[in-house]
């Protein structure tokens, strides 16, 4: 009886999940909204990294020509056509520290550009990854300094690849050389971490109202204590009262925020979609929401894992990815790798289009984000780490000159790109790992856009 009274119409906001009934609660969001509210005028820069395993067929990946303005996308990158003006292809990047060529080091070096210590035990050692360095700068005001996501609900310990501990292959993001950050793949768990239970705007407001009345009571109760205590203890009580006031302030901010909510109704996803593309899109949807709600500003996402044996029957590749990638020059297998590459790019394209559809300040979320997409492996057949497939997307708050192809004549450290991205988010470093300089041409030399 009570239940039907509170039951809500079903909605299907998030793709790929069953319809759900939602109730409020935004506890997770409150601090973030505070931060957003405090800085309404500043277009927030967001940083995202998407990883694909096992390199590419670089021939079908690289756009034709010698670089410059991007006039035509390659076949692999063709799904990015609708957002081409936001995309820069960077060719001939290399990761020297990923040698000797393995899957584990491809994943590990992608964001660290560091050499992984050869061990299969818990004395692993890598380097702090670029996203975490950025998060220390950009993530302070948000509820989650960073968000780590993956597609595979799999944890492995011990040895995974040629004597390398599994952490190298499992974790893209490291907050210190000895602290890998585990990624989450379960949409419901991600959602709850971001938004608690979600709910519609009025429901969230009602929940905030209930919480405000509880806080009101807590404040009264503490004040009552204050009258009973001696002078020495009263200062402690004043500290608690300050704490209560701060929480009340957060709730008021959040209440104000829900009135002209930037977030849609939040339905908690329930299971993991059976279909890979549905699952990936749901994970991208969650990232859009996280950025939109300013719950976090730094995200890493492993779109698939090194040595994955996933098959892609839905695009006509019923073969396992990893063995196929050891193509031995077989044109048929190379074509299959290109198909998988294109499929992954299409999912990234979905993400970019979603970001472009969300208004954010004076532009869109995409305008205010920088996203890097690619692999730490070049040619999977030989496990090398040159000619990495790399894309940079997003407007970088008007700072990125998109629609271009930066093509280096000589192999250039991927760390140069990391250094350049860090520079754009306000972390000025002289060098990063094996960097030799910045990629000056990535960003507009003269900032006309603002």
């Amino acid at each position, binding site marked *: 009886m009570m239940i039907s009274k509170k039951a809500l119409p079903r909605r299907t906001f998030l793709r790929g999940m069953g319809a759900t009934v939602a109730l409020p609660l935004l506890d997770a969001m409150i601090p973030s909204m505070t931060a957003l509210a405090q800085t309404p005028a500043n277009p927030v820069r967001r940083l995202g990294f998407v990883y694909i395993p096992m390199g590419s067929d670089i021939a079908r990946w690289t756009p034709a020509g010698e670089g410059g303005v991007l006039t035509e996308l390659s076949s692999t990158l063709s799904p990015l056509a609708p957002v081409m003006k936001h995309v820069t292809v960077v060719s001939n990047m290399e990761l020297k520290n990923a040698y000797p060529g393995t899957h584990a080091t491809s994943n590990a070096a992608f964001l660290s550009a560091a050499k992984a210590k050869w061990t*299969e035990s818990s004395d692993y050692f890598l380097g702090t990854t670029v996203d975490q360095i950025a998060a220390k700068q950009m993530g302070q005001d948000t509820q989650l300094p960073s968000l780590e996501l993956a597609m595979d609900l799999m944890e492995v*310990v*011990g040895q995974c690849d040629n004597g390398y501990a599994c952490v190298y292959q499992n974790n893209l993001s490291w907050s210190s050389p000895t602290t890998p950050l585990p990624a989450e793949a379960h949409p*419901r768990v991600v959602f709850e971490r971001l938004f608690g239970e979600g709910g519609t705007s009025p429901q969230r407001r009602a929940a905030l109202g209930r919480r405000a009345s*509880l806080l009101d009571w807590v404040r009264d109760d503490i004040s009552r204590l204050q009258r009973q205590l*001696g002078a020495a203890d009263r200062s*402690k009580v004043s500290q608690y009262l300050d704490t209560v006031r701060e929480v009340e302030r957060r709730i008021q901010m959040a209440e104000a925020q829900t009135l002209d909510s930037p977030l849609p109704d939040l339905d*908690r996803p329930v*299971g993991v979609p059976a279909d890979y593309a549905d699952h990936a899109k749901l994970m991208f949807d969650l990232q859009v929401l996280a950025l939109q709600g300013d719950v976090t500003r730094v995200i890493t996402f492993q779109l698939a894992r090194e040595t994955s044996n996933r*098959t892609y029957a839905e695009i006509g590749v019923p073969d396992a990815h990893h063995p196929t990638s050891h193509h031995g020059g077989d044109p048929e297998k190379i074509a299959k790798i290109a198909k998988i590459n294109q499929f992954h790019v299409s999912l990234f394209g979905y993400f970019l289009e979603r970001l472009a559809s969300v208004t954010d300040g004076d532009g869109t979320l995409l305008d205010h984000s920088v996203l890097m997409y690619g692999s730490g492996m070049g040619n999977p057949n030989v496990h090398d780490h040159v000619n990495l497939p790399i894309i940079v997307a997003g407007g970088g708050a008007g700072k990125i000159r998109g629609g271009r192809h930066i093509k280096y004549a000589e192999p250039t450290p991927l760390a140069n790109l990391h250094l350049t991205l860090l520079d754009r988010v306000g972390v000025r470093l002289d060098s990063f790992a094996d960097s030799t300089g910045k990629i000056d041409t990535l960003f507009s030399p003269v900032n006309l856009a603002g």
Partner: protein
Amino acid sequence: MPNQGKHVVFRWIAAGVLAASFVGVPGAEQRPIPASPSADAPYRALVNTYCLSCHNNRTKAGGLELDAINTQDLGEHWEAWEKVVRKLRARQMPPPGARRPEDADRTAALASLEASLDGLSARTPNPGRTDTFRRLNRTEYQNAIRDLLALEFDAASVLPSDSASYGFDNVTVGNLSPTLLESYVSAAEKISRLAVGGPSLSPGGATVRLRPDITQEKHVEGLPVGTRGGALVPHTFPLDGEYEITIRLARDRNENIEGLTEAHQLDLLLDGERLRLFTVEPASVKEDEPAKYQPSHDNLDGHLKIRVPVTAGPHTVGVTFAQKPSLLIETARQPYEAHFNYYRHPRITPAVYEISIVGPYNAAGVGDTPSRRRLFTCKPSRKQDEDACAKRILSTLTRRAYRRPVTDEDLQKPLELYHAAKTSDGFEAGIEMGLAAVLSSPEFLFRIERDPASLASGASYRISDLELASRLSFFVWSSIPDDQLLDAAARGDLDKPAVLEREVRRMLADPRSRNLVTNFASQWLHLRNLDTITPDMRVFPDFDDNLRQAFREETELLVDSVIRENRSVLDLLRANYTFLNERLAKHYGVPNIYGSRFRRVTFDGDATRGGLLRQGSILMVTSYPTRTSPVIRGKWILDNLLGVPPPPPPANVPALDNAKAAVKRLPIRERLAEHRANPACAGCHRLMDPIGFALENYDAVGRWRTLDANMPIDASSTLFDGTPVQGVAGLQAAILRNPELFVSTLTEKLLTFSTGRGVQYYDSPAIRKIVRESAADDYRFSSLVIGIVNSTPFRMRKAS
């Protein structure tokens, strides 16, 4: 029988030692102690003779100028004198090589010094001051919710862990950050809804993941016989309704389901009853494709999903495989026990990785749960009875939550919140809101000890009976008092020693005292660190989480046996029994133990297994991933068993030349020779390393060994007080020769845990008294607890 024989011998030794140690003490307490220094006190003479060559105003060894101190009033340097007692008692001073007093002189000096200090404390007691506000930490909060609402709530899902001070996580608990307050309020809302059966949440749920290094080839305790692997998941279902349970199997790094080479049957159980028997099988092989091009395993476990009606309340969900009649692992090949990594030691059969429980769908009602039975002490049948019933419910609840009788003022605001919610959403929604209010109140979240009004600043006073009841229950149960204890406190009965002791014994006998094992002892003995330690898999290929958890269980069961059977705490060291299951017994090389269940195993004579010093848990938490560390083991024993922690290492200590030593494949003992050769190191390492050497027969995962680096183990050594010892038995005997050191250390740890503050020098007289009195009772565990409960620091408090 051999145990009894040992007992008798020990008692005789203990009695002898004690008689010597405490000679004159009882008399000293009655005798008036002169306030000014008496030059003829034995301790003054001993200090003058043996200590001043280093501890003088020029050399100032250890920052101690005993030449000056020894001429001044005792009370002015109480703290320094307690240090002297500690060093003398542990025989750490004077150091070997220096001139040392005869044992009889040392004992006499100690007795006179301790008697003087105890007298000082008797004249000017300082009970110390516990913080006025002490927040329930995560463990206490979870236990309090369980006892208050009959609700198992996973507090770790909403509250951060608490950081430890003085070795325990209930000491620095006065802080309340905005984020923490939000977490507590959020927890209050969630718990209230779960307890009442509040209206439909969106289907929520739990996702339980098994540690990836669990071997699942054998039976798991609690699951049906004839099964292997899997897990038993306790879960509180919020409402009557349908729930979806999904199982996912463990993958190897290639995303293949590991160990799936043939069909297996997977059982899904609810409260032990089968819900469904699934079959998982490998993908059918395509003839025309080479093996490595076979389809992925994406959908091989996609069907492990069921939607079933479940009633509200606590249930257990079991997931496990049917054991196959015969397996390769049972052959005589003696393969490793560990199976969890495709490369190093692959799984032979598939394993469970994740269990998700999501719901309710089509919620059918609040059901009849233990929480509702506890909460709804009345059920209003008519509208006009609702408010009276609400008041009754909330006042019963508030009394236990606040741990004191409630006033109308206490109830006023929660009842207002109840009214507001009732008006819009009905009676039960009102109760839910009122409950959330009580659980958000600082009077629930904090243990508050108030100075009595009009007390002089710094005066000592006896805490109230109600405060005492809380101290008691948080000490023994890590939770709130029950009604019986609260009633006794409210009546003022706890003042009566007989009542107090009866209550303590009742509480110790209650299952909730298990917290002394899982909360107190697991912190004292560093068992909490077990989960963070993973031995190097190249060196110890047979280590898995099953072994790690078995280590923990063994030690917890030993501590539990000492508490439950009210044994002497010395049995923690000298027990000739321990607790083993098949996994652990195999690891230890103990034959004829089969199955997942732990059972008591008694050894005859001197065995390699038994008390704490012989347990894998302790031996592993004091080792490096690749090798043993006599240093860490020695320090652990000094810190936690003997109570004489060595000072921290000085800055800029060069590392041992590990690489060089490793190339030479020298036993660790040789590698540590530098510690004793270099005077800068020797000062402390001569305290630590020799203790550790005696344990060298145990490797870094606690296995018995006789060789290290192909050289015979030399487990003989000479302790800091010059006692020669041989192996673990010798070390244990040396520790037990001065049992009051070990018992004092345990008492200090218990006192820290029970008062929630670091033990200070002025607590030493109280500790000596507890140890002394418990000696008469063979140091039985209950005598220590009762001693603490009756002690000055526990019963009294210093006003601000």
